[in-house]
């Protein structure tokens, strides 16, 4: 009986050692092969995908900025990829809570690019847009396409003819659409003094995810635009229902400087939240600056000390 027990123990031990041996030795043998993938080695992914920023429609009818994957091939293919994302029910890859805005079944007939202007010719279905979304439609296409490198503006055509006005309200459209067209526009003008426009970036939370929302405001304010930007963003102004800014209320822009396409902004300590400069804060300020000025970098200082630099993407 004891002998049998001892034999069984020996067998179990031997078998266990055998398993451990196999686990330890076999991978080593595989690893000795020249082509094995070592975690420490650089892995080169063979992929043509790149990230692009486009503007999709949020639940409150604002256009929100979001990143999507696009094939990194020709400019023509990228434009077609963006238009697919913007077309309702054409892409299944857009985030929950957001949607395309180009009417279903709209086709992009041709794309021609000349002198950094893309001429997009659509099928007539593009005109099947509701009155309350027709301006957003133009804004979404314009802002999404001009985000591409090498595209400064677009012209929209329908079945070969330039779209000279919005389909329903018949508001005029410029021949070349660019950032001057504005996005998610708000008019807050009550007299003729100091009429200016600035584009401010707010934050919207949709399905527990934060998105950036640009809003072009027309207002009476004769101050320098950077002062308007900081003032509006620090007022924590909740524009209509959901748009917010995380820039603290007591934040003051002590001074600023523009040199060689770099804007240096010097703030007081109130810009910090729990001793940190929030990414949302630098992003909303920097993007508002990039949309308003011809600036490539924004340096954030607090009481004269450099904290972070944000470059135009």
């Amino acid at each position: 009986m004891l002998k049998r027990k001892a034999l069984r123990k020996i067998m179990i031990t031997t078998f266990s050692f055998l398993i451990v041996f196999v686990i330890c030795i076999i991978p080593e043998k595989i690893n000795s092969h020249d082509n094995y993938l070592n975690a420490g080695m650089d892995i080169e992914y063979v992929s043509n995908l790149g990230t692009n920023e486009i503007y999709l429609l949020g639940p409150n009818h604002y256009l929100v900025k979001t990143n999507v994957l696009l094939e990194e091939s020709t400019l023509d293919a990228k434009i077609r990829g963006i238009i697919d994302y913007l077309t309702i029910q054409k892409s299944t890859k857009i985030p929950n809570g957001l949607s395309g805005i180009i009417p279903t079944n709209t086709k992009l007939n041709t794309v021609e690019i000349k002198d950094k202007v893309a001429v997009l010719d659509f099928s007539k279905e593009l005109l099947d847009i509701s009155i309350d979304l027709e301006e957003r439609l133009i804004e979404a296409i314009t802002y999404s396409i001009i985000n591409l490198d090498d595209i400064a503006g677009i012209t929209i055509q329908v079945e070969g003819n330039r779209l000279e006005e919005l389909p329903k309200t018949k508001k005029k459209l410029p021949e070349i659409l660019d950032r001057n067209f504005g996005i998610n526009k708000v008019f807050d003008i009550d007299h003729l003094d100091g009429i200016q426009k600035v584009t401010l970036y707010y934050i919207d939370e949709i399905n527990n995810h934060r998105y950036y929302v640009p809003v072009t405001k027309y207002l009476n304010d004769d101050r320098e635009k950077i002062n308007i930007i900081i003032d509006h963003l620090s007022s924590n102004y909740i524009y209509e229902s959901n748009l917010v800014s995380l820039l603290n209320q007591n934040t003051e822009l002590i001074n600023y400087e523009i040199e060689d396409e770099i804007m240096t902004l010097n703030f007081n300590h109130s810009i910090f939240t729990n001793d940190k400069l929030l990414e949302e804060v630098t992003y909303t300020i920097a993007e508002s600056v990039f949309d308003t000025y011809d600036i490539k970098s924004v340096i954030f200082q607090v009481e004269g000390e450099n904290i972070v630099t944000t470059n135009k993407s």
Partner: protein
Amino acid sequence: MNTKILTKREHEVFSLLIMNKTTKDIAKKLGISEKTVRNHISNVIQKLGVNGRAVAVVELLKLKEIEL
């Protein structure tokens, strides 16, 4: 079909008005009388069916007739 709302002169007047130029400045700049400037402005206000210069400017911005 001509979709323009403003005549060339009205466009010139409102493009200066949006830059906060006075009636006097506009008259001087365009070489016309102040009364003619006021006429152009009131014609546009009437055409748009609004009740003041500022509202007319907002409408013209919305209509993309003038740009900042």
